[in-house]
């Protein structure tokens, strides 16, 4: 029997001289790119640059600070657009540190020839999302690249928020015994985007779950519970989020497969294309690691919030198999939920 403990990837950076699509997939290749190429380049100035959101001290306040780039094809999809994602995604990165989001910036890279009407729709979506989230878009930038050098609109948003004293939410705080909670069902965003991607188009009623989650987090914090970790399972899905947490805290995660909420439309699309719903992106869900005796209170608070009505417990943080995520199957066997590697690809077999 091989031991999976202390396994590390034998080849730290995939042996390719150039950037490939998988480097942006949110899985192991993305993580390696940051850890083994970017952070070493930053040297002493780097530090915490491998986190989705940093909490820093400034002028006596605890500030959460994050930035995120949005490259979405297509730009408009069922349930939203790149504009909604750019606001909600950055709001959520701040929220996952327990912060109250306040101000956002937006930088556009526009391809020549992109209809201004599209840009108008995107900016209106951003405004509506920011208003709904209670944040303000206070600064920004625009640049234009030649026709053929971009996919219409690339968008980068940065955000700042404040973190209350006593709030310490980060992946390495996951502790053995923690209840693992999810705020709702899985895979809606990824399936919605795939359904209108060129050469894969299919009809579906599944729409993106894109939503701002800081209100939900505030409701969870208001219970007084000790929230150890919060994470939005975006690119790479729940599989990537849980693997990152398991690795950061050196704990195991055990899921019960029949408790994982995968809606029929997502399950069906995944069957058709041969995808694993646990690796499909979400944009309006969070996973929480909570002290077990606080779990019921937190779940009740989540279910009372509009973005947490589908909240449920999906697993437990365990001492066995540190760094690994394992699911108990409906038949009573087990399977390992691995870190996705790169892009999600439809399979024929």
């Amino acid at each position: 029997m091989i031991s999976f403990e202390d396994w590390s990837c034998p080849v730290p950076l995939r042996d390719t001289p150039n950037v490939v699509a998988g480097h942006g997939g949110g899985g192991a290749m993305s993580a390696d790119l940051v850890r083994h190429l970017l952070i070493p380049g930053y040297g002493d100035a780097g530090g915490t640059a491998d986190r989705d959101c940093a909490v820093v001290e400034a002028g006596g306040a605890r500030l959460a600070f994050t930035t995120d780039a949005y490259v979405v094809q297509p730009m408009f999809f069922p349930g939203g657009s790149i504009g909604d994602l750019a606001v909600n995604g950055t709001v959520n990165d701040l929220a996952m540190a327990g912060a109250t989001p306040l101000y956002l910036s937006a930088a556009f890279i526009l391809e020549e020839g992109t209809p201004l009407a599209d840009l108008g729709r995107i900016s209106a979506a951003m405004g509506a999302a920011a208003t709904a989230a209670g944040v303000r878009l206070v600064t920004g930038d625009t640049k234009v690249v030649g026709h053929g050098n971009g996919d219409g609109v690339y968008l980068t948003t940065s955000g700042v928020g404040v973190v209350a004293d006593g709030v310490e939410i980060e992946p390495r705080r996951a502790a053995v015994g923690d209840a693992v909670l999810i705020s709702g069902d899985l895979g809606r965003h990824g399936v919605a985007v795939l359904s209108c991607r060129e050469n894969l188009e299919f009809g579906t009623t599944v729409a993106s779950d894109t939503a701002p989650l800081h209100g939900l987090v505030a409701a969870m914090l208001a219970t007084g519970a000790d929230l150890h970790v919060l994470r939005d399972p975006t690119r790479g899905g729940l599989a990537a989020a849980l693997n990152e947490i398991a690795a950061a805290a050196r704990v195991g995660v055990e899921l019960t497969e029949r408790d994982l909420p995968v809606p029929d439309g997502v399950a069906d699309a995944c069957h058709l294309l041969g995808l694993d719903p646990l690796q499909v992106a979400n944009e309006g869900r969070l996973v929480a690691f909570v002290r077990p005796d606080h779990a019921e209170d937190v779940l009740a608070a989540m279910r009372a919030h509009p973005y947490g009505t589908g909240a449920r417990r999906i697993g437990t943080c365990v001492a066995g198999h540190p760094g690994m995520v394992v699911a108990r199957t409906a038949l009573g066997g087990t399977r390992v939920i691995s870190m996705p590697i790169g892009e999600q690809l439809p399979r024929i077999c």
Partner: protein
Amino acid sequence: MCLAVPGRVVRVSVVDGTPMAEVDFGGVRKDVCLQYVPDAAPGEYLIVHVGFAIQRLDEESARRTLDEFTRLGLLEEEFGEVP
């Protein structure tokens, strides 16, 4: 090999001389080539692989198989063994 899933024919058509169908996979809809099951009618279930219907799904046979599984299970409960 060969990820193929059952779907229900919603409507049939002919495109460029090739029989096609819109097929419903539990809510997910996809255009499927009917060249190999040309007489498939709306309501029927097909086995679909890479956008092609490769076979009809025999619903009666599916029911029989499930009934057989159930029957074996009941025998096992009743007699503690199976034939």
